[in-house]
């Protein structure tokens, strides 16, 4: 026998189910008067530093039907590439930018929308800069464990080309699944859970 390492097992995930809105966005689901506002509905204010952008898109299942009961969360750096987190040791992030947002997909159209700013570049662990990106976390009925992916900005061609995470994608024809298309100040980013255009999801 040897000494036990003593590690615990992570609590296993279970699907968020069809009623995730009750717990995470009760006002959206019609339960008012409990919380003043749903958490994560606003990421920016008038003082937030950086280029204002809108991120929007839909999540499609394997039949091409948009999910109307999903919940999307995003996490991103501020315009200077700093995270608004206690674990951020490189400096102090913009106090007027939360970095975290939460949006239920529309119950009719399936669309999610975030009003945010374009993030700055954040270093990879070896010091190379990652391209500007937003982390997405998706939960819904039928999704047994939250799906994590990244949104990159299609117009950041040079930065994307040297991004150490994008470089790790073996099948280069899948890289465009992570690129949001620019249209004015809006970036369109659809997510495909299955099929030809299946989005690259991360285990990270």
């Amino acid at each position, binding site marked *: 026998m040897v000494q036990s390492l003593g*590690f*615990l*097992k*992570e*609590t*296993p*995930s*279970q*699907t*968020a*189910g069809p*009623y*995730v809105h*009750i*717990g995470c966005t009760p006002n959206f*689901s*019609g*339960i008012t*008067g*409990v*919380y003043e506002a749903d*958490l994560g509905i606003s990421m920016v204010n008038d003082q937030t530093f950086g280029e204002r952008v809108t991120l929007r898109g839909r999540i499609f*299942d*394997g039949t091409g039907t948009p999910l109307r*009961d999903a919940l999307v*969360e995003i*996490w*991103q750096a501020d315009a200077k590439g700093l*995270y*608004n*987190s206690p*674990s*951020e*040791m*490189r400096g102090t992030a913009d106090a007027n930018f*939360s*970095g*975290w947002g939460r949006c239920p997909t529309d*119950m009719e159209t399936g669309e999610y929308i975030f009003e945010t700013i374009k993030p700055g570049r*954040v270093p*990879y*662990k070896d010091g190379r800069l*990652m391209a500007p990106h937003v*982390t997405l*976390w998706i939960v819904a*009925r*039928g*999704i*047994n464990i*939250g*799906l994590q992916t990244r949104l990159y900005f299609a117009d950041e061609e040079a930065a994307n080309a040297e991004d150490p995470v994008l470089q*790790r994608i073996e099948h280069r024809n*899948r890289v465009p699944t992570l690129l949001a298309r620019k249209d004015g100040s809006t970036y369109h980013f659809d997510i495909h*859970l*299955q099929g030809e255009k*299946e989005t*690259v999801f*991360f*285990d*990270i």
Partner: protein
Amino acid sequence: MSNRKPETGAFFQRDRQWHPPAYTPDYKTSVVRSPQRALLSLDSTLSEITGPVFGHSLLGELDDDLIHNFAKPGESAIGQRIIVHGRVVDERGVGVASALLEFWQANAGGRYRHKREGYLAPLDPNFGGCGRTITDEDGYYRFRTVKPGAYPWPNGVNDWRPAHIHFSVFGHGFAQRLITQMYFEGDPMIWQCPIVKSIPDKAAIEQLIAALDRQNTIPMDARAYKFDIVLRGRRSTLFENRLEGN
């Protein structure tokens, strides 16, 4: 936040054999919602090592009391009164301070307050079904609610969910983000549920079953259930060359 220095290490690799796989055909909705290609596995970057942390000032007085947070003044939700409490730790056993927990559940009759809910059991006018709290410096939390009822759902012709409470948990890094469900000790329905059975390992399922806690039961008032939650652990940064130093 606690007085402990924030940690900046990468997270332990997630044990994907312990979690349910994406594709679990007995839970039918997963069939077209499960990615089919391999996930891209990477060591955490700063984007996952960091994460939002919420302050206690976020919380309203009744956020952790589902018996009263939707009820009319002087009234309360119908059902068996319970306290749910426990500790949020990481895989190293270290308590996770300031972890935001959000929970939601059906009422005592098994009915959710939701537009898309069609079960014939009645709504309770005094029960909304949502609550939240933030762990203390050592990772402990508690809230008060009524025990949810079991309910039928369209999957098989006659599938029922065991009584459960949904939990959403934030740690300190976005890679710790977790949604799960808590079940109740002694419920035979647990072992008949296709969603529960999406988890392959019996010991992993047992990790989701809260124990009846008679020691913390409040006499003549509410029974207690204890539900501990484990989030991903982190490596020490001591011997790693990281930009932000140690």
